[in-house]
């Protein structure tokens, strides 16, 4: 974060943003740490199962980007909406998903969020406002825009956070959707998780601009680039703009700078980047960063931290148990749920 945590306001690219994090209860601050741990451990566990072939298909792991999902998810209200991506486990956990039900879905079990029909790339929980992961890069940008249209037409005071990657920012539907949202001033935050690669493609091969948030000027909307590995910054910026959305000030494009620690997916041998680059980014571990903030603020102690770690580990173990013991769907069900 650009300025001292004690400050009441922070100035980011000319935006005066209230440091709401300061006002949070201790428990909330700790809960966010716990959620980051949940992502980290869930993903590590998932990776093991993929390597061992227990989880089939592929998963796109969120490790290294935890601050963005959690900061954003806690920066909005419980009943606000999010749309997610192929790299969606983090968003899902941030929005309060149940780890058991998530893990069961990865196992392809009937007890999973999608009854085993969706898998990692399609986990959704519409009832809780999670409008779903998406296997199509950029595929949910239009959907998020439509959800924001509902909020506007129903005047229900809700808004939408649309997660997508740097690579998705070159999809045509990014363009049409942000323009539409601007013209209709819809309550949606387009949150671009710039993790420096689209699969193997580095930014410089996909963009000829310094900041993806510069695209705000193509639509006449607000936007800025933030440190996606700093939960406090993500939280403050997202909650600031979420409220602006709500009062009808229109969409915002937030570029959150972060990094994917693991390969793009199962099959990725990472020829396109150096171990050194990865190491450098790991030094900016969003969890360490946030823990240090909590230590500084005296919110967290080493002991409490260890406890949280244990709690998370055991809830992951529970999730795995649940997933393992759950039933596979019955082949008879294959054509159910095609139509309502």
């Amino acid at each position, binding site marked *: 974060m650009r300025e001292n945590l004690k400050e009441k306001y922070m100035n980011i690219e000319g935006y005066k943003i209230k440091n709401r994090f300061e006002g949070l209860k201790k428990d909330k601050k700790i809960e966010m740490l716990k959620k980051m741990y949940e992502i980290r451990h869930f993903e590590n566990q998932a990776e093991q199962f993929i390597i061992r072939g227990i989880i089939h298909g592929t998963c796109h792991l969120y490790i290294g980007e935890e601050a963005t999902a959690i900061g954003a998810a806690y920066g909005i209200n419980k009943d606000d909406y999010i749309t997610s991506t192929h790299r969606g486990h983090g968003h899902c956990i941030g929005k309060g998903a149940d780890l058991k039900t998530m893990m069961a879905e990865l196992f392809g079990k009937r007890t999973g969020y999608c009854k085993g029909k*969706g898998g990692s790339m399609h986990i959704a929980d519409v009832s809780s406002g999670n409008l779903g992961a998406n296997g199509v890069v950029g*595929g949910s940008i239009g959907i*998020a825009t439509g959800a*924001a249209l509902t909020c506007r*037409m129903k005047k229900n005071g809700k808004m939408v956070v649309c997660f997508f990657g740097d690579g998705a920012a070159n999809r045509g539907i990014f363009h049409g*959707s942000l323009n539409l949202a601007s013209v209709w001033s819809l309550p949606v935050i387009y949150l671009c998780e710039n993790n420096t690669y689209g699969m193997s493609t580095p930014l410089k091969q996909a963009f000829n601009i310094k900041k993806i948030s510069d695209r705000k000027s193509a639509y006449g909307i607000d936007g800025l680039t933030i440190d996606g590995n700093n939960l406090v910054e993500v939280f403050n910026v997202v909650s600031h703009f979420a409220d602006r959305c709500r009062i009808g000030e229109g969409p915002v494009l937030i570029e959150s700078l972060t990094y994917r620690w693991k390969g793009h997916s199962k099959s990725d041998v990472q020829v396109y980047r150096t171990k050194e680059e990865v190491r450098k980014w790991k030094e900016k571990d969003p969890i360490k960063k946030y823990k240090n903030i909590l230590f500084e603020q005296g919110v967290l102690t080493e002991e409490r931290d260890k406890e949280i770690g244990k709690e998370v580990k055991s809830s992951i173990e529970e999730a795995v148990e649940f997933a393992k013991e759950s039933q596979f769907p019955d082949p008879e069900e294959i054509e159910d749920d095609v139509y309502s």
Partner: protein
Amino acid sequence: MTSKLTYLEAIREAMQQKMRQDNNVYILGEDIGEYGGAFGVTVGMLEEFGKERIRNTPISEAAIVGAAIGSAITGMRPIAEIMFSDFITIAMEQIANQAAKIRYMFGGKASVPMVVRTPGGGGTGAAAQHSQSLEALTAHIPGLKVVMPSCPYDAKGLLISAINDNNPVIFIEHKLLYKNKKCIQDVPKEMYEVPIGKCDIKRKGTDISIAATSFMVQRALEAAGKLSKERSIECEVIDIRTPRPLDVDTIIDSVKRTGRLLCVEEAPIFGGFMGEVAAEVSEKGFDWLDAPVTRVAGRNCPIPYSLVLEKEAIPGVERIERGILDLLG
């Protein structure tokens, strides 16, 4: 109580009545506001419903459909108008990968109650990119329903059913039917549903069955009328009405009585929707068919501009007559 309506007026009335009844129904599309849509279907609706519910959009077909999907899964009932069915190809990803699959991928825990209204068909001299009949592209996608009304009564009832349906419905209208004086009908003033998934026998007959879609139903009826008069050949004309879900039973029943089936569609014959109809009937109706199922359909080329060529590209009444006579041998 009925009123004499054109196909276009029937479609508009369905939307007006649903919008008066249900605030969640709204329309979005290009030039649907003041202009009333390229073909005038929404004329007057901006004045009645205002610009929040008659949403004039920029030229962004993919975003239009995407917005419809997102609003549908969160409680609205959008009607997206795509100005020409040729342009649903721009939104094909959103239609085929998102709208059609969301419910299934989410394990049945979401529904996508939306309608994509779009005019198809040629005969307007608008050439290759404004004249296609692309129903085969969407009819193949599980999760979608595809509706193609051939007359005002069906248009109103099917559109009301489509709006009430909790699944994404591709509603394909025909440009030559919109203001067609020849097929104005008495349409009930009140709301009514025509079921999605039922064929309709538009003309009873004993000698041969004809299955057709959209505007081709009208041409088939014309051919049937002529052959009845001129040669007392009695054709049974079946309006497919909804390519997906397809009501094949009604067609088979008819074939059991006539022993013969001619399929008529406007789209290029190769890989067209009628291939599915012909395949299913040839299989399930094998024991009743006295002759092979044949097809009269569009030529295997884009729709050409020159009238002399366009006329050749799309089945006319004469070609349908010939198809009937050939099949009767």
